[in-house]
């Protein structure tokens, strides 16, 4: 197929002459089908303007249903009608042309100035509308024609389709312009003046905006449907055309019979209404035309406009075949680049394969199974005949199968598919996965690929698309495969990495020195493809007195690292001693925050979110950059397995008793944190009342008080948290998860176990409610902590009624905020994407738009792929020097 390039698109108005020329049939009768069940000649479902009944042939082109594209017909209107879509334009033109000679009311100088400006805009491919607007504005000011000295009248636009001429000197002298008058005036405008309106006289004469001949769309554009009862139900457009023809006929009859002017005008008005609503049934101030059932009709404009219209609904938003959608659920046992496909879906979706000598036997085997799972649904024989594979014919087909056949084979393990979750906000929202057919009714995916899709398993649904051509499969494999997208192009860090339990599991495994005997160690490395356990770390005496070799958790983790890997970094458990003025003890860190990997061994440090977590993942980042995507994929898989194996062995759970704090702790929190702060707040209030408080710079006295109170109460919660932390050690599940970065934070835990703290609305304490108080439980003017949303209880202890209410007030704000933020950022993203979607990085490194105009001379100024650089820099010099001199020069 030769590629054709669109050079341009020309828009214009249809001239009455043209409408008649392209018309295949005149339409006179308002009826559709006759009593014999056949379309009526010269009727609306005319056999010359397209066929929608099977078996009939088009009288214009001879095509059958499906072959004939349909042809336009036409209705000769008894009187001209204003086209509602151009009503405003007509008004503007009338107001700026002479009522006698039709010339545009501009002096020679202004005229040529405007014409030149329009020409300039056109050359620059810019909007001429801006200039045209000025033309209308200037010309409408003129009161006497400069060409024929005719005194002009003011035109009033009587919405939606009326024009009234008013004398400038005497506002009471008015005359209504009928469409015939309007058309006459538009006809007088000379061709030379038309470019001033931004129109081209060859393609759009202004008088063509008045309808004298109505084009009738082919029946294929408005097909009737046959109801179950055998009754025909016509399309809304057909209904509307019937109305137009009826009134048109009545108009003609009345006029021919010499009816009074009043009746004629009424009918004219009615015809105008029907033609107007035929084009647009949502005109302001016009009642919409309705169906017999009372439903407003869907006419021309309604077909095109809006989300479900022709443009956004049918052209940009087409539905696709070879796709499936269902709920997702986790399966840590499958690989990260696999997707578990329910067998029912796999049986329905097919891949087209050409039978060749090499795959003949394999396909024959597939065909022999018929529609049993990895079977086939259809075959296309060498003679291009499509046959459905059924229980009765599959064996016969398998025997007959030969080279040149095409087989629609069911989806099977190893096929490549696209997997997607809406909203598709970035390119990682659609990635290529390999199929794994399994029982059940949900798509299964490895939890490590949740972050790029932003998916969870609370009922999320995802879509799958089966690729149909070899090119598409190759492209998906090269560009969209999960392993290619481990590093996020957004922030240059791994996005596919350990989450939740994977982090917990490895944290438990590598935290302190855990010892595993041979059996347990092998258990840990179950389903991980590595060579041997390596040398044991030492021996310990068993209960029976013999020396048993053991392996440490760190050692086992080292087994899944690439052999030669070296890396040093600080984990999330690091308490940033340096920033706080201390010194980093590095290898001797009591929290094991300093991770050292030497020659593929974890020498010290604990594995946490910073090592393998999504968005952080230093180890994964390093492996991806040094050893490539396959090694990175393998590491993620292995670490996920190792983590599950480990967490399975010890078990990991969290319950209400994990929030328990011993009695003395509770007392301490109450007295040292809460009472203390409340006391200080009262102290501040007293100082304020006694006018002893000093205002902070730039703030009023009252603001100062509020600020100090907020600070004091904020500190109260932190203090409570610190105290709680002392009683909750790392053996507490919630603490472990918070510290390792697996899930939750210490703040969450503080609120659960110690003290919920101050509630706020817009960053301030809660003041809304009654005058001077939030609730009737407090005295008016009470400024104490309790009265303005300080919750002293913990979630576990339970909130008092007033605390509960004020907590809900603060909670509402958070809820509203997220709702507003998502909609706003969604729209913002849409606008950004619309603006940037055509930009492309070319082979020479420049960023260009579709015309080839350069936008950026080098992509990102440095020409570097953000997913492949070192944290935003092209190279990390410190790191390279460290590697060469084998000494840590950075930090």
């Amino acid at each position: 197929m030769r590629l054709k390039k669109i050079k341009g698109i020309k828009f214009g108005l249809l001239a009455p002459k043209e409408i008649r020329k392209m018309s295949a049939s005149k339409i006179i009768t308002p009826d559709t089908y006759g009593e014999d069940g056949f379309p009526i000649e010269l009727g609306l479902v005319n056999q010359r303007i397209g066929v929608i009944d099977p078996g009939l042939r088009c009288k214009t082109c001879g095509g059958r249903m499906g072959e004939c594209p349909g042809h336009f017909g036409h209705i000769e209107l008894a009187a001209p009608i204003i086209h509602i879509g151009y009503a405003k334009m007509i008004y503007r033109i009338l107001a700026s042309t002479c009522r006698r000679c039709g010339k545009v009311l501009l002096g020679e100088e202004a005229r040529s100035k405007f014409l030149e400006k329009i020409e300039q805009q056109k050359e620059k491919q810019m909007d001429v509308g801006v200039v045209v607007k000025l033309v209308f504005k200037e010309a409408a000011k003129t009161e006497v024609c400069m060409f024929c000295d005719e005194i002009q009248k003011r035109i009033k636009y009587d919405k939606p389709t009326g024009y009234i001429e008013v004398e400038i000197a005497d506002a009471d002298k008015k005359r209504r312009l009928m469409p015939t008058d309007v058309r006459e005036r538009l006809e007088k405008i000379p061709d030379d003046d038309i470019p001033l309106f931004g129109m081209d006289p060859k393609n759009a004469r202004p008088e063509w905006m008045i309808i004298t001949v109505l084009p009738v769309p082919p029946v294929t554009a408005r097909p009737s449907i046959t109801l179950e009862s055998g009754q025909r139900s016509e399309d809304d457009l057909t209904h509307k055309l019937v109305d137009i023809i009826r009134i048109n006929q009545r108009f003609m009859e009345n006029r021919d019979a010499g009816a009074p002017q009043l009746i004629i005008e009424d009918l004219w008005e009615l015809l105008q209404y029907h033609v107007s609503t035929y084009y647009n049934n949502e005109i302001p101030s016009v009642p919409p035309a309705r169906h017999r059932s009372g439903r407003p009709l869907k006419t021309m404009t309604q077909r095109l406009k809006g989300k479900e219209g022709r443009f956004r609904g049918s052209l940009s938003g087409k539905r696709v075949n070879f796709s499936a959608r269902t709920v997702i659920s986790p399966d840590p046992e499958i690989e990260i680049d696999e997707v578990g496909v329910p067998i029912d879906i796999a049986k329905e979706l097919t891949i087209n394969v050409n039978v060749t000598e090499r795959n003949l036997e394999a396909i024959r085997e597939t065909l022999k199974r018929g529609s049993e799972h990895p079977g086939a649904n259809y075959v296309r024989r060498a003679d291009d005949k499509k046959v459905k594979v059924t229980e009765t014919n599959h064996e016969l087909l398998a025997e007959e199968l030969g080279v040149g056949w095409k087989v629609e084979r069911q989806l099977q393990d190893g096929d490549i598919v696209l997997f997607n979750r809406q909203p598709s906000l970035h390119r990682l929202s659609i990635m290529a996965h390999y199929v794994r057919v399994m029982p059940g009714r949900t798509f299964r995916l490895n939890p490590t690929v949740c972050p790029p899709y932003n998916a969870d398993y609370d009922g999320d649904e995802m879509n799958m698309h089966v690729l149909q051509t070899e090119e598409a499969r190759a492209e998906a494999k090269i560009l969209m495969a999960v392993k290619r997208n481990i590093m996020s192009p957004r922030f240059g860090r791994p996005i596919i990495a350990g989450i939740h339990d994977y982090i917990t599991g490895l944290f438990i495994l590598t935290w302190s020195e855990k010892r595993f005997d041979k059996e347990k160690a092998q258990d840990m490395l179950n389903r991980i493809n590595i060579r041997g356990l390596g040398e044991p770390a030492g021996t310990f005496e068993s209960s029976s007195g013999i020396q048993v070799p053991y392996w440490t958790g760190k050692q086992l983790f080292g087994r899944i690292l690439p052999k030669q890997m070296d890396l040093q970094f600080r984990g999330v458990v690091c308490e940033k001693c340096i920033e706080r003025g201390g010194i980093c003890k590095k290898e001797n860190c009591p929290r094991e925050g300093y991770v050292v990997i030497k020659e593929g061994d974890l020498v010290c440090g604990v594995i946490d979110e910073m090592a393998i977590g999504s968005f952080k993942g230093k180890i994964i980042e390093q492996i991806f950059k040094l050893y490539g995507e396959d090694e990175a994929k393998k590491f993620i898989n292995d670490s996920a397995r190792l983590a599950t194996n480990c967490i399975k062995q010890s078990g990991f759970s969290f319950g209400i008793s994990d929030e328990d704090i011993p009695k003395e702790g509770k007392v301490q929190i109450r007295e040292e944190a809460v009472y203390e702060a409340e006391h200080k707040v009262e102290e501040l209030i007293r100082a304020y009342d006694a006018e002893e408080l000093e205002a902070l710079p730039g703030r009023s006295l009252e603001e100062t008080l509020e600020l100090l109170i907020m600070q004091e109460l904020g500190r109260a919660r932190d203090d409570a948290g610190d105290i709680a932390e002392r009683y909750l050690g790392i053996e507490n599940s919630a603490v472990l998860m918070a510290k390792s970065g697996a899930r939750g934070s210490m703040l969450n835990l503080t609120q659960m176990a110690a003290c919920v703290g101050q509630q706020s609305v817009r960053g301030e304490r809660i003041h809304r409610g009654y005058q001077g108080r939030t609730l009737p439980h407090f005295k008016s003017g009470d400024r104490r902590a309790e009265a303005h949303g300080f919750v002293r209880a913990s979630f576990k202890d339970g909130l008092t009624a007033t605390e509960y209410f004020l907590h809900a007030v603060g909670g509402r704000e958070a809820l509203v905020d997220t709702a507003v933020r998502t909609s706003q950022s969604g729209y913002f993203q849409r606008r950004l994407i619309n603006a940037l979607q055509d930009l492309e990085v070319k082979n020479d490194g420049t960023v260009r738009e579709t015309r080839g105009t350069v936008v950026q001379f080098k992509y990102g100024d440095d020409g570097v792929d953000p997913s492949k650089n070192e944290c935003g820099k092209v190279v990390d010099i410190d790191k390279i020097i460290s590697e060469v001199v084998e000494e840590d020069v950075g930090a």
Partner: protein
Amino acid sequence: MKKGTLSIIGHELVPEHVVIDEIEVKELLDKYKIKRVQLPKIKVSDPAINGLGAEIGDVVEITRQSRTAGISLSFRLVIG
């Protein structure tokens, strides 16, 4: 420049603009295999090239400090 207006040239947020000669322009266009109109544009009235004596059709070179690349060069075609 009109009396009483302030020149923004030299301000730290305004990168350096220099008009380049025809030979350099040709080299530039050849390097990227583009036509003159495919360059990014700048208006003659733009305050950043005010006083440079740039005329419509000239090409200016802009030297920017870039966070990613240190120094980046860009070119713009002067238009009316």
